[in-house]
C-alpha cells in the first residue's frame, strides 16, 4: 500500500455474467484489489480461519480488515454448522438461499441453494425457489421458513410474532426458530458484501 498512489478499482477480465438464479458453480470477480497471496501475514491467515480460503479473492479482499473477517467467519460457521439440535442444516441453507433470492444476490443464492438441495435432497423445490422467487409454493414448512427470511430481510424489518407463530405451527422449536433468524440475518450481511465488492461470472 503506497501513501502516494491512490487506490483504484479493478476491471474484471472478459466474462459471462449469469442472468438467472442458478445452482451451478459460479466464479466471483472482485472490483477492489484483494491482498496478494504472498502478502498474507500470520494475522491474515489466522483471520481466514480455513487455509483454503487464501485461494479466494473474496476472502483475501476481506482480509484487509482481519479482525472483522475473523469474527464474521466464526459467526457464520456456528450459525450454519453447529450440529447441536435446532434447524436441520438443509433448512438453515434454505433460509440463506431465500434471503439471497430476495435481496438479489445471484452468487450467494447459487452457493446456498446447492447446499440446501444437497442436504434436503429436494432439488426440485430448491430450483423452484430460484426460478419463481420467494413466492414459490414449497409446502408449508418451507413456505414458513422462506416467509420468515423475507420478512426479516425487508427494510424496515417486517418480521414479527406472527412469523414466529407460523414457524412454530410448522413444527419448529424455539432453537430452530432462532436458527432461521440467525441464518436470514447473517445473509443480509453476506449479500451486501458479495453484491457490492465484486460480481459473479459463469464458469466453464
Amino acid at each position, binding site marked *: 500500500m503506497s501513501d502516494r498512489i491512490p487506490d483504484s478499482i479493478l476491471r474484471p477480465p472478459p466474462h459471462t455474467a449469469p442472468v438467472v438464479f442458478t445452482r451451478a458453480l459460479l466464479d466471483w470477480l472482485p472490483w477492489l484489489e484483494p491482498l496478494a497471496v504472498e502478502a498474507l501475514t500470520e494475522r491474515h491467515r489466522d483471520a481466514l480461519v480455513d487455509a483454503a480460503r487464501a485461494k479466494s479473492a473474496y476472502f483475501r479482499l476481506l482480509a484487509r480488515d482481519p479482525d472483522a473477517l475473523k469474527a464474521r467467519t466464526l459467526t457464520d460457521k456456528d450459525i450454519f454448522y453447529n450440529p447441536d439440535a435446532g434447524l436441520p442444516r438443509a433448512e438453515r441453507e434454505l433460509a440463506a438461499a431465500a434471503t439471497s433470492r430476495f435481496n438479489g444476490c445471484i452468487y450467494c443464492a447459487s452457493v446456498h441453494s446447492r447446499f440446501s438441495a444437497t442436504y434436503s435432497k429436494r432439488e426440485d423445490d430448491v430450483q423452484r425457489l430460484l426460478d419463481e422467487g420467494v413466492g414459490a409454493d414449497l409446502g408449508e414448512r418451507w413456505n414458513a421458513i422462506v416467509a420468515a427470511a423475507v420478512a426479516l430481510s425487508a427494510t424496515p424489518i417486517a418480521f414479527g*410474532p406472527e412469523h414466529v407463530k407460523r414457524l412454530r405451527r410448522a413444527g419448529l422449536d424455539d432453537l430452530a426458530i432462532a436458527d432461521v433468524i440467525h441464518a436470514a440475518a447473517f445473509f443480509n450481511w453476506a449479500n451486501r458484501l458479495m453484491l457490492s465488492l465484486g460480481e459473479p461470472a459463469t464458469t466453464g
Partner: protein
Amino acid sequence: METDVIDALIGIEPGSALDAIRNRRKQAREQAQASYRALFAPEDSGGVAAIERFAMAVFVTGLHGDAEIAAFYAARLAESGAAAELRAATDGASAAARGQGPYGAFPAGPLSREDAPGPAHRVAADLRRALGPRLAAAFDHLHMLVFHPRDAAPPALQALLDAGWSTTDIVTLSQIAGFLSFQVRAVAGLRALAATI
C-alpha cells in the same frame, strides 16, 4: 465484563429463555460481539476514525427505523467526541434518506421482469458541508447498501475512492454496513421470538 450489545439491545437477562437459546449457539453469540468490537472498538482504527464508524452506524440503523438501536449508536457517537453539528447532520441525513427495500435492477435478461426501480440517494448539499466529503460519500454508498444492494456497481466504489476512502477503508465500511444489517435483524428477530415465549 464487556456488555454484549445484542443482549443489551433486546434486554436479555441471565437465566432467561433467550439467554439459554443464545448459549446453544455460543460461538455465534461471542463472535457477533467480537464483530462489534472489531468494527467499533478496534485495537487499531486504521484509516477509519471512531467518529466515522459511529456516524455510519447512526445513519444505517436510522435507515432501518429502529429508534432504540439508532439511539445506542448515537450515544456512542457522542462519546467518541463528535461535534454537535456533525451529530445533527448525521441525524438529518438519516431521516432524509429513509425508504423501503430491497429494490433495484437485475442483470438484463429473464430477471428484468422482477426489476424494482428506485432512487439512488444523494445527501443534500447543506448536510454534505457539515459531514465533510468522506462521510457524505459514505452515506450515499450506505443508502445503496441498505436499500438496493443489487444496484451496486464499480462507479459507486470509485466515488468512495475519489472522496478519500482507501481500498482497505472501503472493506471496513462495507463490513460495518453488513454487520449492522445482521445486528438489527438478529435483534428484531429475537425480540419477536421472546415476545411469544
